[in-house]
């Protein structure tokens, strides 16, 4: 209440732009507006930050053109995972570009150079979004107790000034997605003492149930009401399902659009790599999809379901299918709550992004359970627990060296395109090359990582730190260019290797899993899923050398998996 008069003072803005000049200018302008500003020069860093500090930001300002991740991808992630308003900024003011931004869900699109006056108004997007959500909630929930205690928010009382009637709901919404103490981690129902229904977070299991339900009903016939019935999850509302379904459909649609593009596989799961033209030219990854290259949404949904089904099951096999195959945009479904105290677990999403970034690895960054996207064993109760990873690891270690690298990568800026092109080979490819535990990784696959190494190191340090403390990391309130400070040490060896967050145990496992996941992912693109799967699985234990892997069709050139 105290601060409500001052709204929008203190609005917490996260700015993402790779251009340091622009960042600085925006920072100054936003400060002038009396907003609280956090800067990021890398989209991946920003995403991590958003995940780690949920509820700490009100709005995101993101550039469209960024080297490590396309602004639209970030937009999508933020929209799905955190549901924050995102405002795009770009020097490109063409109607088509702006249209794309809006269609993809951006609340607004500002054209550079940005003026102070434009920034003064961004708070409206925050309010509008909250208001709409609140209205949605009003319809679905019965407002029991409108006066929720404010949790975790010092300065969010502006919500109440905006919407007295649904005060409780707004607060509930803004309530920090607190400790997911739930055993099954499905619904974020916090203590029953608090009346407002907390924001639902779609955990892996929940999503899996959702997908099964959709498949059972048939995508065309899947209506929220029926899905709800089939899922039979207490506390889940029709509205929750409806909005999730909408997102899911969009996601599937994007998948099928992407599949149509000749760029093929990499595109699906390495979102940020727009510069995959070179990739395509390698001819290695033509998506072997049926007919026109369009993957029917039903098939996608089924695929998705299968992936998820397995993901909760036995790790070793499930890892294969894991959401790895799921294109990055789908990952949103899998990476949910940021658990506290599970510093090293990264949502799968992240992993998926950079599968195409092979690294000459070095030891997996041990702490990298993180990147692996393993769900914490804690409250979330997701199937994949770090413990189980170990089991998998033994099987697949060799395969996944690189994949884990990728995990690492998520935290890092994507390798510059120029160096990337040749590396586009699926991570799994790389993985195969290195049978040794040491992840010497220089195998035939030829991963280059010069540029990346430097950025990696800087990045990794940063992210590692972040992981361990879950704190502001290198991202200080004001300036986070950490990830972008070039090290210049373009050495081949992965300096990151030395980064060792000490989470070491399941490190190999993770990498293994990831690698297999990546492999599977790549393989999956072919319609002949089961074939791929089985070959993958059976070979996993044998995939100790590059040669075997080559059998799978990865020889680095020529046709991709059938």
């Amino acid at each position, binding site marked *: 209440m105290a601060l409500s008069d001052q709204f929008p003072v203190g609005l917490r803005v996260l700015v993402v732009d*790779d251009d*340091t000049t622009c960042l*600085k200018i925006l920072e100054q302008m936003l400060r002038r507006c009396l907003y609280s500003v956090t800067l990021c020069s890398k989209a991946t860093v920003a995403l991590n930050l958003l995940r780690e500090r949920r509820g700490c930001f009100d709005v995101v300002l993101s550039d469209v*053109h960024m080297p490590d991740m396309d602004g639209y991808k970030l937009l999508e992630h933020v929209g799905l995972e955190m549901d924050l308003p995102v405002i795009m900024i770009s*020097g490109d003011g063409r109607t088509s570009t702006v249209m794309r931004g809006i269609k993809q869900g951006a609340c607004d699109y500002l054209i550079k150079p940005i003026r*102070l006056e434009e920034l003064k108004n961004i708070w409206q997007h925050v309010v509008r979004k909250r208001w709409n959500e609140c209205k949605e909630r009003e319809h679905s929930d019965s407002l029991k107790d409108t006066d929720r205690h404010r949790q975790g928010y010092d300065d969010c009382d502006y919500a109440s000034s905006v919407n007295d009637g649904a005060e409780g709901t707004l607060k509930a919404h803004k309530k920090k997605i607190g400790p997911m103490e739930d055993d099954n981690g499905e619904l974020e129902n916090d203590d029953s003492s608090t009346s407002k229904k907390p924001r639902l977070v779609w955990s892996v299991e929940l999503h899996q149930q959702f997908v099964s339900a959709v498949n059972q009903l048939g995508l065309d016939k899947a209506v929220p009401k029926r899905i709800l019935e089939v899922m039979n999850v207490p506390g889940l509302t029709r509205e929750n399902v409806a909005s999730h379904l909408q997102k899911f459909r969009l996601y599937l649609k994007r998948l099928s659009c992407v599949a149509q593009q000749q760029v093929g596989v990499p595109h699906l799961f390495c979102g940020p790599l727009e510069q995959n*033209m070179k990739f395509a030219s390698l001819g290695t990854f033509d998506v072997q999809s049926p007919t026109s290259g369009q993957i029917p949404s039903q098939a996608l949904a089924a695929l998705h379901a299968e992936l998820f089904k397995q993901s909760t099951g036995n790790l070793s096999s499930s890892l294969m299918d894991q959401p790895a195959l799921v294109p990055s945009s789908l990952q949103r479904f899998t990476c949910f709550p940021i658990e506290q105290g599970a510093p090293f677990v990264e949502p799968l999403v992240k992993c998926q992004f950079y599968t195409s970034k092979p690294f000459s690895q070095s030891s997996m960054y041990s702490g990298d359970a993180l990147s692996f996207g393993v769900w914490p064993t804690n409250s979330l109760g997701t199937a994949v627990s770090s413990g189980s990873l170990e089991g998998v690891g033994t099987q697949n270690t060799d395969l996944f060296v690189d994949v884990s690298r990728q995990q690492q990568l998520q935290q890092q800026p994507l390798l510059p395109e120029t160096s990337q092109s040749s590396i586009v080979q699926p991570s799994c490819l790389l993985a195969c090359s290195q049978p040794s535990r040491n992840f010497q990784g220089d195998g035939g696959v030829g991963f280059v990582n010069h540029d990346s190494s430097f950025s990696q190191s800087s990045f990794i340090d940063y992210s590692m730190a972040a992981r361990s403390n879950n704190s502001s990391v290198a991202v200080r309130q004001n300036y986070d260019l950490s990830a972008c400070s070039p090290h210049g040490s373009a050495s081949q060896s992965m300096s990151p290797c030395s980064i060792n967050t000490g989470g070491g145990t399941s490190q190999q496992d993770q990498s293994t899993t990831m690698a297999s996941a990546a492999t599977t992912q790549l393989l999956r693109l072919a319609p002949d899923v089961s074939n791929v799967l089985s070959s993958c699985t059976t070979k996993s234990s044998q995939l100790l050398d590059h040669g075997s892997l080559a059998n799978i069709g990865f020889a680095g050139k020529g046709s991709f998996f059938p």
Partner: protein
Amino acid sequence: MDVVQLLRQYIDCKTTLFREGILDDQFTQLQKLADDSSPSFVVEVVSLFFDDSEKLLKNLTQALEQPVVDFKQVADHAHQFKGSSSSIGAQRVKNVCIAFRTYCIEENLDGCLKCLQQVKHEYALVKNKLENLLRLEQQIVAAGGSIPPVE
């Protein structure tokens, strides 16, 4: 040199910059953003801009020297340069970048090379003038004078 002379030079420099379109209104916006808590804001931003630009120019040059030119990448660099130059108000640089991008899309190597030359030239010009302007500012302040407020 006394403050009065410095001030005169400063005003001349500034007027020229705007009259010749080297700088545009965006720069004025930046000047307005400087305040007590960040008095050297403009200097800082301009320095960042110079750093960024040097890198971009280097990248552009390298990209265009390749045996097989990756026009998309060149376009990306040009786009970036356009963004930063427009943010700082370096109008002429920005305009060249716009043309530059068009040539990239057309994959017109000659056009690109010409633009590269042009952008280097414009950049050198704005750099020179801005450095001059900022130095004069410092000198004026050091001599006890104050900069006329931005209208």
